[in-house]
């Protein structure tokens, strides 16, 4: 499967990836599905959905809205099936998830920009000026 490889040392915290995410998804609440946070030594840390091999958000989902695609390996989210219970927000060990800030209904979940290309073509990767994030094939 493909995953967004993160080279933290290259990240300068410019947030181009965050803006790209909002643009790509045309989210009316202008919420992103990724984030860059600053640690206690003021170093930026890009936090992007890992589409985990053992996805806690999927294990905790009580409606089946969050599910792993066995073919692409991507963790997909069906907003129509979602009950907005937020168990996934609580379960993501890395704090990637939140709900949209207007209706508080939809989980802001990375879809690898499969709406641009079914195989995945994340706009954040395309726009990152530092090549801190790159699309890379992985075993699991």
């Amino acid at each position, binding site marked *: 499967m493909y995953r967004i490889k993160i080279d*933290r040392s290259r990240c300068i915290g410019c947030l181009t990836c965050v803006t790209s995410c909002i643009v790509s998804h045309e989210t009316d609440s202008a919420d992103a599905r990724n*984030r860059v946070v600053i640690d206690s030594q003021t170093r930026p840390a890009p936090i992007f959905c890992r589409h985990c091999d053992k996805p806690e958000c999927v294990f*905790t989902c009580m*409606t*089946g809205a969050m599910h792993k695609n066995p073919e692409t390996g991507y963790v997909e989210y069906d907003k129509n099936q979602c009950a907005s219970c937020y168990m996934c*927000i*609580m379960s993501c060990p890395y704090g990637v998830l939140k709900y949209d800030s207007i209706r508080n209904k939809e989980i802001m979940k990375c879809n690898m920009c499969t709406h641009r290309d079914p195989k995945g073509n994340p706009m954040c990767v395309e726009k990152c000026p530092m090549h801190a994030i790159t699309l*890379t094939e992985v075993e699991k």
Partner: protein
Amino acid sequence: MKYIVIGSSAAGVNAVRELRKVDPSAQIVLISKDRNIYSRCILHQYLCGKRTIERLNFAEQDFETLYKVDWMKGREVTGLDRAAKEVILENGERVSYDKLLIATGSHTFIPPIKGLAGAKNFIGFRNIDDIEVLKEVPKTCKNIVVLGSGLIGIDCTTGYLEMGVKVTLVDFAGWLLNRQLDKRAAQTYIDKFAEEGIDQHYGVGVSEVIQNEDGYITNVILTDGTDLTCDFFVITAGVRSNIEFLQDSGLELSKFGLVYDATGRTNDPDIYGAGDVSGTSPIWPVAVKEGLIAADNMAGKNAAMTDFFASKSTMTFCGIHTMSLGNVTPPDDDPSFEVQTYDKNGVYKKIVTQDGVIVGALLQGDLAYGGVLQQLIARKIDVRRVKKPIFEVDYSDFFHIDDENYQFYYDE
């Protein structure tokens, strides 16, 4: 290899999926009282008509064919013959197994209330059949009394509220969602419910119910003497595991439920357990994980339950969201606990630490990215190195990524 899985909810369904993944050629038989796969966590949305029964299904539409499972729907296992390695069904039919998973869940606990025995108008809030009854209740009943203000009781209360039905809520605890919330966080909901017209009675139990000559409850008498008119009584005062059929099986049972180890194995090496049937941590994610782990071990792949952190929940009632993790109400007189709170503009946050380790957290009104807190609590990570306000703690100070697959992990 022939597997039998009993129960078609979170643990059973996920066990079937995992068994098929690990053992593609096995025969898998699923036996369940339920005729449909449905999520019990969203029954309140079925009650008020927001969701159809099809949309309660948390599995794939083609679950049976996709996982090649022989599903015996609407069947009840009433006994177990371990010597013959067979389960016995309600009509006496026997089905043999090589490995068996018991994921039979739990049922509503009916407390021994004076005057309740034999009454015709009370029910729990557990199975789809309960909800079918409860959907019809407001057509003929005006005064609905709900006993218990835990997550299920409040699901029932707010499900009805969506229908414009205002119930009366009774709980022995001092405030609603007593296990999950502190008084401050609970007060947000108590005030909102009061505004919506919900009559609430906390800190009181039910001393007795009065039945009329036709066997219908007409009044619920509380321990403080309050006399509530009642046309229908809903009981959500806890659950008990479904282990009746195992009483003479020789499987080890505790006072809570079926006993099994971290791999899911019972005292019979060919029999496993998963989910609410243990009677210890009745929450969805635990059931799913136990189902997956038991299935792995049944199919010869070693796995063990390592994440025992089950004291967690999220909730949304009347549009107000809350996340609760760990111990949110430490004793006032113990100076080893430090409590920090933030309370502004409808957002309430509380973080409880002890010796630099977060032991409890409440987030109300803003849950964004709250998942990190669960890890910090479960892994007992010292957060004193974080030089930001504790409410802004995130993964950056714990950031690790593996060089091979680029997955995140915690090193602590």
